[in-house]
């Protein structure tokens, strides 16, 4: 259901995002408030019948972690590449 696009950008993205599709309740917070527009809402359904987010542009992910902070269902998180997330990352 979730499309995982290979990064087309020549430069490695700063971060990546992990979506737990089946935990998602489709509120759309993550896609709306991702500052770089990495996420879009899928037209497909998860098993609970919600539309989860999909990764529309992985290359843009900064790993800022905002999507994870917004997600009321603990279904998504972003992380900077190459190191463990710290609280400073949000």
């Amino acid at each position, binding site marked *: 259901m*979730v499309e*995982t*696009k*290979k*990064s087309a950008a020549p430069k*490695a*993205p700063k971060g*990546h*995002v*992990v*979506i*737990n*599709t*089946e*935990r998602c*309740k*489709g*509120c*759309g*917070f993550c896609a*709306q*408030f991702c500052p770089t527009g990495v996420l879009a809402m899928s037209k497909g359904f998860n098993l609970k019948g*919600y539309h989860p987010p999909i*990764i529309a542009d*992985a290359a843009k*992910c900064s790993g800022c*972690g*905002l999507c*994870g*902070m*917004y*997600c*009321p*269902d*603990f279904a*998504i*998180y972003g*992380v900077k*590449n*190459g*190191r*463990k*997330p710290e*609280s*400073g990352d*949000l």
Partner: protein
Amino acid sequence: MSESYEATVTDPVSAPMTCDSNPVEEWLRMDRMPHIWCPGCGIGTSVNCFTRAIEESSLDRKNIAIVSGIGCTGRVAGYLLLDSFHTTHGRALPFATGLKLASPKTKVVVYSGDGDLFAIGGNHFIHAARRNLDMTVLCVNNFNYGMTGGQVAPTTPEFAIASTTPYGSVERPFNLPYLAQSCGAVYVARWTVYHVKQLQRSIREALEKPGFTFIEMVAPCPTLFVRRNRLGDGLAALESYEENAVIKNGADTRECDLGMGGPIVCGKFVDIDRPSYLSNQVAHLRKVLGDRYVMPDAWQGVVQ
């Protein structure tokens, strides 16, 4: 976890994946997931801000206790992997008071709803703030009683619809920051769950400050309040918070009333110092009783 979740991951390209789970998970009782909250409910978002704040703070997980009353927000205690107490409706604060007096080394956090803290528990709130016992009160204000089906609360804006005010409430709601300040809270802030970064920072400040600290966390109850008042869904509510928020640190709390569709003044409004209950108690009894005063064992080395 009772359900098996299938995780999808973006390609980390060259960098190895260094975080194999959501950072909130280490603070959650994962064996209780999924939680009961509705899609787009703001309570979960506030929990993210809270767990990041404690992670960032200097607090030792063993020395944090979370106390909730009853309500959708009251369920927070049951989802956090901390010493956690789900008490009775309205009585989280007096429970927390006893807990703190018995174990001053514990950072006591009261996490509850607007109805729980300000209707049935309102009397306890004003007295807890007055006493200035060290504790942090985090109130999810969703403008109604979520758990019982969206009845009017002491925070419901004038003329808003609730299940027990089907034609609109005519009562004037509490202005929570003003109330908290008047009663003696040493730290008072308001953020919405749209303001995740600011809320996280504010919770951390409140946790690290001695005395009675209070944060109002404005959050959508999409199933009841938002829907009944034709405000869209949870996302629409967050967008309206973004639009209506007026960030004004140090604002006069008398000017922080919330009305339907009006501005939401956010920020840190109060940050003062005042002797806390425990230090005041010990200093006074030492003065009055001298060497005859026997400090409780659990206070030794904690209360100066």
